[in-house]
């Protein structure tokens, strides 16, 4: 299998789907001539031309809404947001239009569109540019939300998202674009709404999604050295949420820690923890712990920004807690 970066995996997914279906096109800031702010769309303008690879003005509300209208009228747009921080300007379009059209038209209208871009903490960017907005999207019925953490998952999920007949929000991450991993040459899809067990284990279930996966896997390796066998679940999709996989794992390990770089209140982590507590109450040997970013905006100073986010130490402490090792 070829080893490629997360960025290239996304690029291949878009390229293959544009080749497969002429209704697929991409629009956003800097996606064309500049090859994407994070180079995800590299080479696409040269290959598909200005009709299908469209540089927009900096007008998130406008071009996101235009994407939604185009989807309603038969196209399959991919809207690239330079980052999710800027998608906040477009939230009205996504939440009130994309997510509601099927519903308020009594099922007449479909909105096959993908909104994608980097989400979550990056480095040295302070509070307006470094935050996870996962909860904002996950909260909304009518949207699907995917958050892959490996090149393999990114490619397979983006292809599924483009083919999906509902609006899909995809969460990537600036710091993940250069991560590498194996991706098969032949075509494959990953279904939306299916979690993946990234590491089998029996003593404790660690659940996460997106960028923290690496940290969680590294903690699992270190726990193994101490004789603790952790199972690591990568949610991959936040909506629909694969509770079957989560519950089956917790029924096996009886302990769970959910790791999330969003803020704690109303977070994906807190919802997953609630679902486990409710469904697996009798099988739990300890209360479910969550490890999230601190409940503060992101500071610029590097030491501080690391202190704000989930760390190996915070995760191991939570594991120690659910295993009563303190």
């Amino acid at each position, binding site marked *: 299998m070829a080893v490629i970066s997360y960025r290239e995996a996304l690029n291949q997914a878009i390229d293959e789907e544009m080749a497969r279906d002429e209704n697929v096109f991409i629009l956003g800031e800097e996606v064309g*001539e500049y090859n994407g702010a994070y180079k995800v769309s590299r080479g696409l303008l040269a290959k598909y031309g200005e009709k299908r690879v469209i540089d927009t003005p900096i007008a998130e509300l406008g071009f996101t809404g235009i994407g939604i209208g185009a989807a309603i009228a038969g196209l399959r747009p991919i809207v690239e947001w330079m980052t999710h921080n800027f998608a906040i300007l477009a939230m009205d379009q996504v939440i009130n239009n994309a997510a509601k059209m099927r519903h308020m038209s009594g099922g007449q209208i479909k909105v096959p569109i993908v909104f994608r871009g980097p989400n979550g903490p990056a480095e040295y960017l302070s509070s307006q540019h470094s935050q996870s907005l996962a909860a904002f999207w996950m909260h909304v019925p009518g949207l699907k939300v995917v958050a892959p953490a490996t090149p393999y998952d990114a490619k397979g999920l983006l292809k599924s998202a483009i083919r999906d007949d509902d609006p899909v929000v995809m969460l990537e991450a600036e710091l993940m674009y250069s991560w590498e991993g194996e991706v098969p040459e032949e075509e494959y899809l990953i279904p939306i709404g299916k979690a993946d067990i990234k590491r089998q284990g029996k003593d404790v279930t660690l659940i996460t999604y997106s960028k923290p996966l690496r940290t969680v896997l590294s903690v699992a390796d270190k726990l193994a050295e101490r004789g603790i066998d952790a199972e690591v679940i990568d949610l991959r999709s936040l909506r629909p949420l694969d509770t079957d996989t989560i519950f089956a794992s917790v029924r096996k390990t009886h302990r769970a820690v959910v790791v999330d770089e969003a803020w704690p209140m109303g977070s994906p982590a807190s919802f997953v923890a609630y679902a486990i507590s409710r469904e697996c109450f009798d099988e739990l040997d300890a209360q479910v712990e969550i490890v999230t970013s601190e409940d503060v905006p992101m500071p610029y100073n590097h030491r501080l920004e690391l202190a704000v986010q989930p760390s190996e130490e915070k995760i191991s402490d939570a594991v120690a807690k659910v295993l009563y090792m303190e």
Partner: protein
Amino acid sequence: MGVKKTNSAKVLNDSLYMSLLEKMLLIRIFEERAAQMYGLRKIGGFCHLYIGEEAVATGSIAAIDLKKDYVVTAYRDHGHALACGMDPKVLMAELFGKITGCSHGKGGSMHFFDTEKHFLGGNGIVGAQIPVATGVAFSQHYKETGGVTLVYFGDGAIHQGAFHESLNMAKIWNLPIVYICENNQWGMGTFWKKVSAVEDFYKMGAAYDIPGMQADGMDVLDVYEKTAKAVDIAKNGQPVLLEARTYRYKGHSMSDPAKYRTREELEAYKKQDPIGRLKTLMEEKNLIDDKAFDALHKKLKKIVDAAVEFAEKSEEPAIHTIYEDIYADKEAIWQL
């Protein structure tokens, strides 16, 4: 160059020439040093330099009275902060993420603020400062302070709905504000003409019955005069849109090699360098010679050296400060 008197309280005189030159040169030297410090990894993240555009902030801010007027800008804010009189030390310390920085190491390059100097940032979301600044003008109008607000934004930002919504409300509510579009011609890698329906931004004011003006953003005196005029109009409850044509010499931020433009384009603008142009004019008026210029350069370099030393020696913020500066009290923060 015919320099006319303006209606504004300030008149172009010899000492003003010197202070404009000094401000622009300070910004230039500060920015060059910031670039160097970025290379040494003392500064991280997005660092948007103002080199080439010094005349815009310098000329316009010289035309207002910061005792009652306000300045609001975006993330390319070092020049405006210095033009408002912020201390290079606290700015460099902020770039270094130190506790002595103007935002205690929380904001970094994009988020300089100084409420005492009436400099309200330092805002990272393209166009989002425009309604906020309009609200500052609303407050000035409401309290009848007699002050105006200058708000700066790029050629990219002008296409945000936030700009258009703001102009309409400023007009219907007679707000004392001057909207200054710093047209440096590139919004990241996008040439402004490619994404704009009109080629003269000042015309956009017309849609809201707001007077539009244009200034040569490479000429600090032109910017000064036009701003002074605009401020006079704005003080009488008539918002103004002022477009300053300028150019950024560096990439969009430190990580952008700016491959999208030609060397010729850059060189052509460097030939009209705002500092060089003012220096030549002052030489013609016998206000400065090479020796005096060099002495000024040396003096400013020392100030910037001292800023770097101050930043270097300052303490990192303590970890517990992550919980500070979020609410007036801490009750609303979730902590177990």
